[in-house]
């Protein structure tokens, strides 16, 4: 397994996707050897120097803690890292939509984490262990770090990261739901977590069945009417970002706090939870006998 590059930058930067390929070597994708870091640094565009959010050390230290803590069960690292990465980086969605930032974290700052988390287990059909390239540079819901950040952003309930930890604790949920548009509606995201917590849906097939049913119903139903959300106050996020300068490292044992935005209206979450429960009970789920 690879270690960090011998040269890790001190500051985060922007790495254009078209500049990534020379460093995505066959050896890296097999998890055998990583680039040295010096050549990669030459193609990185710097971020503003006066912003303390771009220090690399807090990110490095988070991924190292995750690799140590979850060395026995690496998929469980997602639920731990997602809220902490989110609370450390303190990004706006506008900033998080820039794939170059995620490219830089995956290739320059923590390629060893990408390999540790996403190197495939050997199977009969694919005996060779391998990391899919999109874990380094790829769609927002697939890339190693951006998927965690977006999961945290879409599932947090105002400052509360509790729902994020629950959602990320279920690989099927994150995998299926992050690519669906319905999740952009906050009450929908919270209602899904409620169903997960209540134990109504747990397996991949159940989650898939539920998500198909929600999407299908969503084609004719407007969830915004069934479950209205409050407008967000942009000042809360800006204040939180401004506090990054003086913020201590995020808690390792307790969940950190997110930006002080209003939580999703409780009536809306309750209404959708009830509605989705009904939907699920009548939805076709592979492997479930009708009348179960």
């Amino acid at each position, binding site marked *: 397994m690879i270690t960090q590059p011998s040269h890790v930058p001190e500051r985060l930067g922007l790495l254009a*996707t078209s500049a990534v390929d*020379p460093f995505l070597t066959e050896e890296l994708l097999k998890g055998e050897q990583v680039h040295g870091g010096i050549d990669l640094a030459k*193609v990185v565009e710097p971020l503003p120097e006066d912003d303390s959010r771009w220090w690399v050390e807090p990110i490095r230290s988070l991924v190292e803690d995750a690799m140590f803590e979850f060395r026995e069960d690496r998929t469980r690292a997602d639920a731990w890292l997602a809220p902490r990465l989110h609370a450390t980086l303190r990004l706006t*969605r506008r900033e998080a939509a820039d794939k170059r930032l995620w490219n830089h974290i995956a290739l320059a700052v923590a390629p060893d984490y990408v390999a540790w988390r996403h190197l495939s287990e050997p199977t009969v059909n694919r005996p060779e262990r391998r990391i899919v390239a999109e874990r380094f540079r790829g769609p927002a819901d697939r890339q190693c770090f951006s998927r965690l950040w977006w999961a945290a952003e879409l599932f947090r309930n105002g400052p509360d990261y509790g729902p994020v930890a629950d959602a990320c604790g279920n690989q099927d949920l994150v995998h299926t739901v992050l690519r*669906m548009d319905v999740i952009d509606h906050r009450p929908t995201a919270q209602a899904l977590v409620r169903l997960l917590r209540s134990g109504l849906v747990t397996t991949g097939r159940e989650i898939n069945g539920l998500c198909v049913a929600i999407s299908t119903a969503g084609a004719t*139903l407007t969830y915004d009417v069934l479950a209205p*959300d409050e407008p967000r106050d942009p000042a809360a*996020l800006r204040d939180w970002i401004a506090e990054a300068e003086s913020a201590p490292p995020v808690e390792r044992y307790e969940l950190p706090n997110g930006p002080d935005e209003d939580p999703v209206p409780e009536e809306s979450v309750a209404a959708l939870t009830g509605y989705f429960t009904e939907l699920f009970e009548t939805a076709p789920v592979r492997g479930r006998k009708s009348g179960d």
Partner: protein
Amino acid sequence: MKIYPYKRLNRPITLRVTSVSLKLSDGTRDQLETTAYSTQQQAVALGIAGHTDWVSATIGLSATLPPGANAPDAAWSDLCVLAVLTDGETNVRTSAELTRDAPDGRDWSGSVELLRDDHMGRASLAVYAVGTVDGVRGRSIAETDRSWLVDTASDEPVRGLQLDVQTASFKRSSREWLQAYADAPWIVDVSARVPTVFVNTDVEGVMGLLDSNGSGVESKVRDLLIAQMATDVWTAVFHGAIGDLEVEPGAGPVFPTDWQGEVLREMLPDVVPGVHVEEALRQVHRRRTGDSGWVELQTRIHYAAVRRADATKALAYVIRSLEQMNRESET
């Protein structure tokens, strides 16, 4: 064509933007000129006044429901009208209720708020009429058929494919990755947020040619060159968009909500003619990910790109100019 299991209005809602104002970081507001939005293009350009420090934009809207919305025997009750702002790049979805202008009218108005921190490029704006039908709340009974585009950076309200053209010496550029392409006259990068053409200034005279104007043969050659670049761009963005499709469980591939979606909607009728764009998208996705048919499709993709780049016209003008030049040198 979607089939709905309940009664709906057959015609779409029409949506107009009626005002746009920016809230600046010092708390003041700037009411933008009407040139910030275009009803014909259905586009809003928030970058028009050159502000870089704005916090949010308020977009005033007016929507007209199709006839029949208020019919006394309508199948729906609890009618409400929502404006919904979405952005696929940043997963934003915000909605605002509009209010009816007159008790029995079909015009509704209101405004949506767009936060600058929430968007990187373009958002889209649609309106839905929602009611209770057969006892089911929240049924969508009509919507706009084409969303408005809100561009958070552009200074001109247009919908088309945005292109960024950059010039650089590939050998000496600070973007070191360009050095690998030092012997190419230009390259296309569609992995950036907006497709970008990098023109290699190491090719001597290329800038002079690209900047040439007037009516001489040079300007015709320039147009041909641009048509060639544009063909490359259209081809590359099509492949980029198709290769990056999201697939909804049970529903198949979905149109991207950003410029990639615009490109696909525009090109697909030429790639798979004669079918609805949704079906065309499914067919193309199946061919790319399936066992056969992808190679055969390349000619059609190239055709769709060439058409968009006006390559035939550019070539015809060059030939005409060359003929004229030859004739003049003979006499």
